[in-house]
């Protein structure tokens, strides 16, 4: 899994030279300037280099391209085919949906495959199931909520 860096934007005032930003990765902070060129294109200055970035966002990932080199970042929490579990222990919807039932509460322990939340979209019920055994540490949705793909609904921590 590619690590998606943490980005801090100093100011969005799009004055001369664009926007200042700092990209924070575990190893270092990199200051850059980002100048919007319109239509999803940005001129990014990294040190003395000037890179043109072309962006597109899909339903499961963001894509960017610089000089024919492509970077794909899955959305922060992306549903997997059967567990709807991201590897960091969060569970999220794969498509925009409505929460119709919440079956767990914080502190509950669950087994792999247990239903956590039931979603409805396009007249289809979609259970979100635990991808592995664990304890519910956070519940971020309630019945009736409209939820977006990738936004965490339930977080689990591993139990030994």
């Amino acid at each position, binding site marked *: 899994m590619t690590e998606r860096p943490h*980005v801090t934007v100093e100011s969005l005032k799009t004055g001369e030279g664009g926007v200042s930003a700092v990209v924070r990765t575990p190893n270092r902070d990199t200051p850059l300037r980002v100048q919007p060129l319109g239509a999803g294109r940005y001129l990014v200055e990294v040190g003395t280099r000037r890179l043109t970035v072309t962006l597109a966002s899909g339903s499961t990932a963001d894509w960017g391209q610089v000089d024919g*080199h*492509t970077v794909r970042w899955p959305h922060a929490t992306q549903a997997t085919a059967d567990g709807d579990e991201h590897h960091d222990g969060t569970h999220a919807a794969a498509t925009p949906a409505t929460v119709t039932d919440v079956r767990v509460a914080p502190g509950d322990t669950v087994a792999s495959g247990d239903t956590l939340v039931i979603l409805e979209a396009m007249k289809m019920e979609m259970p979100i199931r635990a991808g592995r055994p664990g304890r519910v540490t956070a519940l971020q949705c309630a019945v009736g909520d409209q939820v977006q793909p990738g936004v965490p609904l339930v977080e689990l921590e591993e139990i030994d």
Partner: protein
Amino acid sequence: MSLRRVLVANRGEIACRIIRACHERGLDAIAVCSTADQESPHARLADQRVIIGGPHPQKSYLDIGRLIDAARETGADAVHPGYGFLSESPDFAEAVSGAGLTWIGPPAAVIARLGSKIEARQLMERAGVPVVPGGTPDDQSDTGVMAAARRVGAPLLIKASAGGGGRGMRVVRDLDAELTDAVQLARREATAAFGNGTLYVERLFPRARHIEVQVLADDHDQVVHLYERDCSLQRRHQKVIEESPAPRLQEGIRRRLTDAAVAATHAAGYRNVGTVEFLVDASEPGEDATIAFLEMNTRLQVEHPITEAVTGRDLVHAQFEIASGEPLPWRQEEITVRGHAVECRVYAEDPAAKFRPDAGRLLRYEEPAGPGLRVDAAVEAGGSISPHYDGLLAKVVSCAEDRATALARARVALARYVILGVHTNLDFLQRTLEHAAVQHGAVDTGFLEAHLDALTTPPEDDTKLAVAAALAVDDRLSRRRLTDAVDAVDDAPWTTLGGWRLT
């Protein structure tokens, strides 16, 4: 006979390329498509489109009965098969001719003769065309094939007579340890893939170039060649980058190759455009380097545009003229090579994940353009790359006065090519073009496999950081457009962007 309506029995870029040629000649073009391709560019480009079946090729593009029906229903008088699918099927050629339609290609009997690798090899030997040293044992028992292999000596290849694409093929470097298994495995694979377990044996050249010669033959016993293409940059027997002319090829070798190709074409009783593939031993430095016939491809090749670029001749137009019974449009002495051309095949695949094919919707698509550049593609923004078909997205063809400029032009075109939504090999192609050995023009067919690690490294850090920053700013700007309320937050220093987390 003069043609009026042509059914193009293919899809993707080659269907588009043929449909355009039809229109240039004032011919109506009929596209066929599977249900998965109804909105594809080739279906839209044609004057008429027939949906012939389901997405699986067996139910559509490989269904001879449906294709013939489609031609009849639409009043077509000719069929162009393109490449792949049924282009080298003698049964399809026979069915087209049997239905009273003109087949844009060689006669069925010629396709069948050259499709049998053993028969083709024997034909070329009789015609004095050099073939790879080896054996075509009449005794097809395992012991018979093994005896033939021992006469050839290691290293060697066990190959399937009905083979292609590396299937039914086994390398033997140690006769005692590997031969028995290799014969049995090749036999099993060949039987499964082609329904024919006939095997033959060829000596293996550890360092060889793949050089092929474009030929044309008409109904009046005239044959010309359009010089050579070097297709040594291959991965798993799939060509990746081709160029014409072959770099650093001595004139004497070029002459032997083109002479042999013309002789092979005559010997085969060939008609229409074809390609004679040769191996050139890269371990011999001189003009006397071994050349050997590999096979003859009885169709238009994927890489035909580089030949068109350096000779200034249109091969698809020539196909129509030859199929109409007209004499060859050019004499040999009129055909010259000018400059240099390179083709890069852009695939929907992820080189960083062992070249796993990728499918999906194209979120963004912008083709490069400029002098000396030709992009043959059949994809567009919003279109889908289907998991049912070959992942070839486009062919980027660059040409220039000299090789270095043609390579540079291809590299810049790839860098400018925007394809987002599926993984592509754009990066891999650029790294390959930049490699010193490729720049020097000194590669053999083992090059790509030997250098895969260096050619598939992930994008450098600056690229990833720049994309991350641009995405963050893009995300913030689009939110600000949605609501004024966040302005106050936006203007606060050191805003941390939501949704951006270490994963």
